[in-house]
């Protein structure tokens, strides 16, 4: 069975393996041991701290095959996107250029660099082993975060965003980057993703365009790439759109992939989750996403079990794997 839990420093080697395997566009999961160790430490510190309002905390989760002890997935929550430096996106703008005298009515699309999503909570660093894609375990890797948010809402913003990787060519280059970012940065897409992961995003303020970019002036393949999701991001995209996230307004400044967003309370797993008491037993037909409510030992899994408004019946194995006792409160949501 697979269990998701908050990460410990001893997870570092396994996390490194997953980071190496993850596609280049996941900037929040670079192949840098120091950076990854920093993320785990920040998660440990954030969980230990008493938080009244979301700030610079971040939470890092791993999924473990409890039989082999192998790590099979990672994901994270950043409490406030752009806490230390602005969180940049391109906003899709529409300008209407109309000349009644000439009978012309044009909608001109433009991309404006904006900080609109700064301060929103960010779902980041998602990656699962390829074999688990589109399984209930990739759902677990993504959505356990939503139960975590539902349990401790004071730690998060009213809106949640997540960046989906944009499309790339077989050689790893990005058509959107080559027509847009490269003109301002003069470096390759892979290089900029690396800088972002390792050096932070300060250089964006220095290099990015200050004025809106008119979409009709972009190369055709860059226009085509706007808002398109990379096959490697299909899993989180599918999960999050099912959760009610919307993809229309913002795209990533580097690869043009969509930045999903949703009001926290409108996220399906948040809105539909509820607290129930644990009972011991077998059987039941429902598929449930289930998470503990212990901040010092957060664990989550997917179970097929019987649940009503007050109680969920869990097998002995599940109780053991999640460290639960009968009578404990857990948070569940329909899978």
């Amino acid at each position, binding site marked *: 069975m697979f269990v998701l839990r908050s990460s410990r420093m001893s997870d570092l080697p396994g996390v490194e393996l997953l980071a190496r395997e993850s596609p280049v566009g996941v900037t929040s999961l670079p192949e840098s041991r120091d950076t990854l160790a920093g993320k785990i430490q920040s998660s440990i510190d954030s969980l230990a701290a008493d938080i009244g309002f979301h700030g610079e905390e971040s939470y890092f989760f791993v999924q473990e095959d409890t039989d082999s002890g192998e790590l099979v997935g990672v994901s994270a929550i950043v409490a406030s996107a752009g806490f230390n430096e602005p969180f940049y996106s391109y906003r899709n703008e529409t300008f209407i250029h109309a*000349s009644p*005298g000439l009978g*012309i009515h044009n909608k*001109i699309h433009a991309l404006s660099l904006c900080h609109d999503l700064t301060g929103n909570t960010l779902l980041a660093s998602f990656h699962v082993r390829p074999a688990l894609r589109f399984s209930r375990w990739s759902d677990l890797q993504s959505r356990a975060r939503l139960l975590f948010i539902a349990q401790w809402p004071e730690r998060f913003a009213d809106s949640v965003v997540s960046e989906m990787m944009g499309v790339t060519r077989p050689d790893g280059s990005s058509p959107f980057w080559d027509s847009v970012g490269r003109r301002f*940065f*003069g470096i390759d897409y892979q290089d900029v993703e690396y800088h972002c992961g390792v050096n932070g995003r300060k*250089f964006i303020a220095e*290099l990015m*365009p200050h004025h809106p970019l008119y979409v009709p*002036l972009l190369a055709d393949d860059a226009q085509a790439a706007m808002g398109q999701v990379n096959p490697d991001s299909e899993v989180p995209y599918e999960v999050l759109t099912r959760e009610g996230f919307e993809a229309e307004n913002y795209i990533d400044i580097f690869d043009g992939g969509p930045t999903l967003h949703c009001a926290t309370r409108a996220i399906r797993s948040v809105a539909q989750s509820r607290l129930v008491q644990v009972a011991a037993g077998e059987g039941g037909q429902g598929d449930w996403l289930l998470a503990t409510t212990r901040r010092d030992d957060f664990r989550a899994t997917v179970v097929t079990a019987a649940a009503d408004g007050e109680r969920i019946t869990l097998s002995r194995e599940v109780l053991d794997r999640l460290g639960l006792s009968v009578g404990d409160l857990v948070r569940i949501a329909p899978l």
Partner: protein
Amino acid sequence: MLIRSIRTTDFDALMTLASDSGVGVTTLPANEERLTRRIAASVASQAAAPDPANSSFVFVLENDEQAGQVVGICGIEGSVGLTEPWYTYRVGTAVHTSREIGVYRRLDTLFLNNDLTGAAELCSLFLHPEWRRDGNGSLLSKSRFLFLAEFPERFDRRVIAEMRGVSDENGRSPFWESLGRHFFKMDFSEADYLTGIGQKSFIAELMPQHPVYTAFLSDEARAVIGKVHDNTLPALVMLEGEGFRYNNSVDIFDAGPTIECPLPDIRAVRDSQVLTAKPEDETQGRTWMVANRRLDDFRVCLAQTEPTPMGLPLTPALIAKLGIAPGDSVRAVLLSSKN
């Protein structure tokens, strides 16, 4: 050949001339109502109080040996952009650097602006193709400088001239294709015509209002920013010789350069002299432009002569052509700084 102030009776000749004019000469479209207005404005400007806002002068080149045939036209506006906005793009520079990741980028930008608002403008130059010889083009264009020298109070101190930008034999402008077409959804020639007949409000309505990075334009478009049409090169060289300079302003449609010069610094203004017309049966020397100094019936001719302490020797025929009497004063300057 004689340059003189336009008259109402020139209308028919001008319609013929205008219909010979091509794309790019936005100020002389073959449009009856507009031509009528231009002539009336020029006549009215002669009687108006001396204020750049009132000045819209037009002159014609007359082949005075062939029954006064009109073969060319030129104009000066005292001050542009006072009723409709006058748009240009400014070619600017944006530098983006990051020490941290070792990047230095320099990008050209186009800023839509009205910076030339208020300037005086050389405009409406057109010479019939058959008469593009014997210095007629220079005379037609430069005769205006004697008018500026004579009546500076009627013109803004900043004098500009828009130079036709690059387009191919079909009137296709690479700059337009790469930029304007996306916003105007029409052909360059149509936009050019609409501007020519004074329908300028569509520019504010349709134009991109945010600065454009030229990096997003086609290579051909970038290559023609600030460049003139081959046919316009001689005119550019001539005006540069008079002191006009490109100052990073270009046309919003074809990216042709707007050049400018302070009025008193124009060579033919600065070097012009007021001299007494001295009748002589025969004169010789370098080629001079000679003007009659009259606001209501301004005239300019060319003369081969050289000034003497007694005045400027001119033949009686030329004096008559200028509509003056012997002993009247004239304003004269060498046609070119080089002869």
